[in-house]
C-alpha cells in the first residue's frame, strides 16, 4: 500500500521535473540558424567540390596534368586533358571536368595532388534541376572567376 | 587461453576429413589443419580447416565451449574451382578468435547448415547463399536476404559480370 502511494507521488514528481526542464529551456536562446537568411561560415577544411588553384604570379592553373587526381578518384568522376604548347616547359591544362553527380566528396584527389593544384571550394548549397549542371568544367570556372 | 582445450578436439575431427589447401599455401605442400596463429598479425588465434561433412561437429565443439558466432562468409577461389566458407567465432571473455574454414567444390557447392546450433547463422548463411550461391543443406529458409527476392545471380562469384 505504501509502495503504491510512493510510486504515484514519485511518478508525479518526475513528471513535474520533466515539465520544469522543458519550461526552463524556454528562456534559453535559440540554437538554430535561420538558413536562407543566415548561414554559417564553412570551416577551412570543409570538403566541398574541388576547384583549380591558380598560380599567384602567372594567374594560370597550377595543374601540370600529371593525372594523379584522375587515378586517385574512386568514382572516376575527374577527367582532365592537357597539351604541351610550343616552347613551354611543361604541359598545361586544356580541359578539366568534374562529374559532380558521381563525386562522393572524399578528398582523395586533393590529397594525391603533389602540386597543390586543386583545393576544396567552400560551396555547399549546389542545387539544380538539370543533371548537366553538375558536369562541371572547372577550367572554365576558374577562368571566369578572374 | 580458451583455445587450448579446443585444439586437440579439432585435430581429432580435422584429420578424419579430406585435407584441403589453405590460402597462400603452395600447391602440394603439407598443410597443418589446426593452426595456431598470432593474434597480433592475423587477428585469429586458431585456424581450423575441416571438411564439409565435419563442419557441424566442429561448430558443436565451439558451441559447447560457449563461443560466440561472429560471421559466416565465403571466398571464391576461381582458379582452384573451390569455394571457401569461413566461420568466425570469438570468445566473449578472452577475445580470442577461432576461424573454421571449409573448402567445397565450386561445381557442387553444398554443405550442411549450422543454423540449428547457432540461430544467428540463419542470416549469415542466407547472405552467403545470396552472394556465392552456396547451398546450406537443411537451412529452414534459404531465400535471398540482401538481394531482391527474384535474384538468380551471385555477385561475389569471381566470374560474375553485371
Amino acid at each position, binding site marked *: 500500500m505504501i509502495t503504491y502511494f510512493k510510486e504515484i507521488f514519485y511518478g508525479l514528481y518526475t513528471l513535474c521535473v520533466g515539465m520544469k526542464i*522543458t519550461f526552463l529551456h524556454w528562456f534559453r536562446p535559440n540554437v538554430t540558424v535561420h538558413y536562407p537568411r543566415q548561414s554559417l561560415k564553412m570551416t577551412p577544411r570543409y570538403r566541398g567540390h574541388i576547384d583549380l588553384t591558380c598560380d599567384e604570379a602567372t594567374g594560370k592553373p597550377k595543374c601540370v596534368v600529371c593525372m594523379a587526381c584522375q587515378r586517385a578518384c574512386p568514382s572516376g568522376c575527374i577527367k582532365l586533358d592537357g597539351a604541351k604548347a610550343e616552347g613551354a616547359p611543361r604541359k598545361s591544362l586544356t580541359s578539366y571536368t568534374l562529374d559532380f553527380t558521381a563525386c562522393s566528396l572524399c578528398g582523395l584527389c586533393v590529397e594525391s595532388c603533389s602540386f597543390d593544384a586543386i583545393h576544396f571550394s567552400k560551396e555547399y548549397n549546389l542545387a539544380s534541376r538539370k543533371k548537366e549542371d553538375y558536369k562541371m568544367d572547372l577550367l572554365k570556372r576558374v577562368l571566369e572567376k578572374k | 587461453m580458451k583455445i587450448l582445450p579446443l585444439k586437440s578436439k579439432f585435430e581429432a575431427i580435422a584429420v578424419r576429413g579430406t585435407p584441403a589447401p589453405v590460402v597462400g599455401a603452395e600447391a602440394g605442400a603439407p598443410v597443418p589443419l589446426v593452426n595456431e596463429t598470432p593474434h597480433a598479425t592475423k587477428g585469429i588465434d586458431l585456424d581450423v580447416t575441416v571438411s564439409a561433412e565435419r563442419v557441424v561437429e566442429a561448430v558443436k565443439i565451439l558451441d559447447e565451449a560457449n563461443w560466440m558466432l561472429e560471421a559466416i562468409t565465403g571466398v571464391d577461389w576461381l582458379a582452384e574451382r573451390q569455394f571457401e566458407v569461413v566461420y568466425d567465432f570469438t570468445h566473449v571473455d578472452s577475445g580470442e578468435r577461432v576461424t573454421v574454414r571449409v573448402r567445397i567444390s565450386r561445381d557442387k557447392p553444398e554443405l550442411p547448415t549450422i543454423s540449428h546450433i547457432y540461430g544467428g547463422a540463419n542470416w549469415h548463411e542466407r547472405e552467403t547463399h545470396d552472394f556465392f550461391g552456396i547451398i546450406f543443406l537443411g537451412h529452414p529458409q534459404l531465400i535471398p536476404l540482401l538481394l531482391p527476392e527474384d535474384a538468380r545471380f551471385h555477385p561475389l562469384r569471381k566470374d560474375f559480370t553485371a
Partner: protein
Amino acid sequence: MSSDMIMELVRLILYLVGFLAFALLNAAYLTLVERKVPSWFQLRPGPIEVGPWGLLQPVADGIKLLGKQILTPQGADLIMFKLAPVMVVVPGVLCLVTIPFSEMIVPRNFNLGLLMIFAFGAFGVFAILLGGWASNNKYSSIAAARVVAQNIAYEIPMLLVVISLVFVTRTFNLHTIVEQQMGGFWHWNVLNLKASIMMPIAFLIYFICMLAETNRAPFDMVEAESELVAGAFTEYSGMGFGLFFVAEYLNIMVGCCVGTILFLGGWDCPFGLLPGLHWFLIKMYVLCFAVIWVRWSFPRTQFYGLLNLSWKILIPFALVNLLLTAFMLKLFH
C-alpha cells in the same frame, strides 16, 4: 410571427455565426500554438516565415489542406469514410453551445448543459472509430480499437469526478455552477475543501482524463505516429485530415472550458474583482497551454500502462473522492 420570436431567431443566428467563427479560429490558432510552444521548448524559432511571427501559418496550412486531393483507399467504406471527419467536428461545435463564457455571453443556457457536453463528448470517439474502421487500413483499425478501449477506461474516472462535483453544486446548469463560485479563488471548486478535501486531486484527475479523452500525448494512442504511422487518420488526406485536427483542438478547447467552469470559477477574477470574459479566456488558454506543455515533455505511455493508470489509480481515487464528498456533504449540510 411575434417580434419576440424574430429577436430570438436573430440572436441565435448571431451566436451561431459568432461561435462558429470563434471556435474555428481558436482551433486554427491552437495549431499555431502547438507548433510555437514546442519550438520555444526546443531552442528553435518555430514557424516564422508566413506573416509576422508566423501568424498567418494556420491560414497557409488551411489553404494547403484545401488544395490537396482527397484520396479514398481501395476497399474503404465510402460513406462512413467521408462521414467520419464531419461527425468528429460536429460534437465539438455543439458542446460549445451551452458553455457560458461570461455572465452575459452564453449561447443557450439550459439546465442539463453539463450532461449534454459529456453526451456529445463521447460521440467524437464513435466518429474516430468509424473513420479508422472505414479506412480499410490495419494501422487505422488498430488505432480505432485502441481509442474505444481508452475512452471507455477514461470516461469512468472523469464522470466519477464530475458526479462528485455535481453533489456539491446540485445542478447541471453550467451558468449556475460558475455563479456559485464567484468572489475570489478561495471560492472556486478546486479549493472547495469544505466540500471535499480531495478537490485538488479531483481536478488533477479531471485534467488527466481530459488529456486521454481528447487523445492527447502522452495518451495519443489514436495517432501514435511512431507506432501506427498516423493511427486512425493514416488514410485521410486534404481537408478530411484537417477536420480531424480541427476536432482535436475543438475538443481540447471544450475540455479546458469545462475544466475552467467546473473547477476554476469560470469568468470569476481570482481576487473577486472585475469578473468578465477575459478571465474565462485567460484560464482556458492557460489550461490549453498546459495540455500542449505536457505533450511536448513526455514520451507516450504504453497501452496497458494507460489502462493500468485508469483502473488502478484514477478510478480508485475518483471513487474515494466520490465517497468522501458524499460523506462530508451528509455531515456538514
